[in-house]
């Protein structure tokens, strides 16, 4: 009969052995894992270095979104105080984060790189309505600071909001011929600066990006 108890001790042995192996989990939230460079976190609406909004309210992101969670409406830019370059700007911009599947199709569709994703993923909310991010949550301020709906939460690493998943373009966003075939990302006022990934042409970055660093 004794061999029966031996089997149970074997179980303890598995645990005992494990105690001396290196740990693979991270004690989140005290420690956070380094995320992959193209992690799809919450969205941000970018600005140009001169402070203009990049979004032109074209609704392409809303059209492509498989979860149908984006609601955009465009409007004529005020003549004296244009919000974005050109005729049209996005005067309503909402994303329902409860429905978003973080596929980044919106980022890919955007013709102006107005919408990009950051590394921040902590987005707990107290009610369904808070999960609908509007312009006031999504749009960065002219100095590049991205607002967060729960800034005091200790889980947040607001630094993650400045890491944009902007490496999407196969050709130059500005459509200029000299950048044909060169991969790069365009400057944003705050988020979006990262060292080139492996295999990415660092020298393909246009000069304007330098100006925006400050």
């Amino acid at each position: 009969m004794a061999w029966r108890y031996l089997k149970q001790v074997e179980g303890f042995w598995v645990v005992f052995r494990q105690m001396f192996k290196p740990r693979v989990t991270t004690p989140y939230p005290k420690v956070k894992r380094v995320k992959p460079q193209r992690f799809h976190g919450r969205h941000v609406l970018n600005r140009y270095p001169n402070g203009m909004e990049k979004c032109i309210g074209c609704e392409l992101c809303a059209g492509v979104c498989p979860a149908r969670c984006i609601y955009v409406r465009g409007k004529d830019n005020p003549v004296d105080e244009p919000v974005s370059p050109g005729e049209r700007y996005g005067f309503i911009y909402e994303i329902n984060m409860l429905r978003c599947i973080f596929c980044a199709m919106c980022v890919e569709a955007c013709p102006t790189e107005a919408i990009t994703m950051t590394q921040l993923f902590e987005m707990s909310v107290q009610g369904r309505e808070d999960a609908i991010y509007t312009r006031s949550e999504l749009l960065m301020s002219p100095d590049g600071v991205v607002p967060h709906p729960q800034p005091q939460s200790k889980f947040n690493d607001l630094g993650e909001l400045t890491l944009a998943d902007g490496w999407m373009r196969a050709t130059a966003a500005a459509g200029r011929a000299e950048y044909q075939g060169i991969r790069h990302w365009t400057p944003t006022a705050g988020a979006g600066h990262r060292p080139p990934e492996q295999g990415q042409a660092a020298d393909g970055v246009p000069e304007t990006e330098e100006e925006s660093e400050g």
Partner: protein
Amino acid sequence: MSDEATPGMVKITIDGREMQVPAGDLLIAAAEKAGTYIPRFCWHSRMKPVGLCRMCLVEVEGPRGTMLTTSCTMQVNDGMVVHTESDVVKKAQEGVLEFLLINHPLDCPVCDKGGECPLQDQTVSFGPGESRFVEEKRHFEKPIPISDLVLLDRERCILCARCTRFSEEISGDPLIEFVERGSGTQVLTFPDEPFASYFSGNTVQICPVGALTATAYRFRARPWDLQAAESTCPHCSVGCRISVQSSQNQVLRFQGVDVDSTNQGWLCDKGRFGFEYLNSPDRLSTPKMAGDDGLQEASWIDALDAAASGLMSIIDEHGPGAVAGIGGARGTNEEAYAFGKFLRSVVGTGHLDAQIGDGLEPRLLAAPADRGLIGDLEKASSILVWGPDLKEELPVLYLRVRRAATELGAKLVVAHPRRTGLDDVATHTLRYRPGAGQDLLRRLAAGEGDAGAALAALKEGPTVVITGLAGLTEGPDLAEAVAAFGRDLPDATVLPVARRSNVFGALDMGVSPALLPGRASAVDDGARATLSGHWGADVPDGSGRDTAGIIEGLEAGAIRAVVLLGADPAVDFPDPARASAALAGAELIVAIDMFESVSTSMATVVFPALGFTETEGTVTNLEGRVQKVSRLLPGPGGARPSWEILEDVATRMGGSIGATSAGVIATEIEKVAPAYAGATWDALNTAFGRDGIVVPTADATQPIEYVPVDRPSAPVQRDLVLHLARVLYDGGTTVQRGLSLAKLAAEPAVYITPQDAHRLGVADGSAVRLSGGNGSAELTARFDDSLTPGAVYLPFNLGISVGSGLEVELEALA
């Protein structure tokens, strides 16, 4: 396929496929019918080809070898061999697109056309992947308004001339044209002359790029977030097919749908942009009841109780004949039927009318003998238009008549008291003083003097006679006499017209003292007995009052209560002041409406009704064509369909009209109304689709067939007579509650001939006082030499009324 060609057809080979196509067709059209789409920008199936854009190049084999040619300018020939997908064609298409895009801006994300743009679509399907052109593009000032409704972005224009050709060929107001040359070529208006056409919106729809956009739709939505439903335009009785498009529960635009029978793809601007009133914040959304200071919001229960008990106490005290109903011509057939049934069976009154004192003999409108169709215009040799200025009242019918007179070569005779939109293309124009129409008709019938040539033209059949009320000061007799004259022509069909959108449907549903549902006569005892069998209630005899009679009855105290269904007699009656005073004396007014109006301000109870795009049903156009209207939107909060409101009032009065849904009413109509047998929703949704059903169908019977009678009257001889007629943009609700159209309503003015002006000492633009049968007004005088001396013209419903009497006086003010 057999080798024998069917007569009228020729055999051609497209991309190796042999097919038979109608002889005389353009290659591009024949190929499309046979299932081969050839890309195009400038060619439009409803306009003449020009061969400007070169997008439709195909290879045609000929005796001198295979050559590239534009398929939009080439007619099919027997034995023609065509290649649309050869390498040469592909190279040509890529070249054309690359060149078209040299100067085309990268505007797609902000362009209203983006997503439904032929240039985008065809570039993706037929264009080169890349362009060799890196040079700076041509620049123009971004959109310039060329009218109050249309914006032009010249950078995007690809110079296809669809817009300029439309305005010249189709609408006949060539106010836009190409200027400059080379890459500077652009579409422009003439200096100081805006593109003020009643049809300007069509250019926006047919522009193959986003160069022409509509102010009402600018940046409101993108094509992929629009929901669409096919429906029928609610603005006049032509019944144009439209696609209603909405987003986020707001109607955002109407687009014309191309059907042969009515609009051929076109819409007038009132139809196209007249949807904005539906989104108006002034829409009624709760019932209201008269309180101490004006109308107060009330609960549905209180309002329904008040309406029912008010009606019942008047019926108890004075009998059902003290109640009358006006309206029903603005909604669906189902609503009109419910209205008629409510009044006749639940209330028990025969005083009901859908026309507001500005119509014709109801039997003439509903069931004229030898009734024509709009489509008859296509084969007509001659046309007589003696009635309203079609351009102002039935604009798309104007386009159809214009097409017949220009494109198809029909001889057109126009008789009207002053210049009409059709005069430019008319072979004969006859003018007369209001009141003296009978005299002119007699001369025309006898072929006397200058009318002789017109009569000769009209004797060449087939002839279409369009008749209606030319002016509101004239009685309905003249139009009827014209219809009678038309019937006597050798080979003529008659098309009596009235403007209000579903007035034909309402009359067919029996909203008239003389008519029962399905074009039966109310004086016919047999028809009444059958109907009361269906309804289980007595049907009052045909001695009821029409709107003018109801107003008289109110004045005399014989009528004490009025039920209004979407009608505003205090504004729309030819003598608004008189109607207004009469309504003010009513004991009880129950109004069902979408908006507060002058008439509802006098009401005891006002119910908020759902309107167009918010209710489903059918409507009937001026040729008797039944078409579907669709529901796409929920409408404002507390509003409900009119039939449902009437049913609730009926229930509280101890009756019922059996209206549990619009579909149920439609089934009942099909059963009860003889002429509507077979016109079911099912048939409308499936078999007949876009063209609707002309009632009565071959299997239905139409109990009455009205033969117009000529009741000659003595010409009126007065010093100065008034021509009072409607204009397209007036003070009506649908215009005034929409942002785009409201600003287009003209300033009221009185028009006078220079001769009379000279006699009365009036200068062009000076202030005058016009006094008529009921009131007088101070106005600006304008010269109009198209009037007959002794006549003055005042547009109706622009805020000025002097009554509807023929005789007026005019004096110059210092």
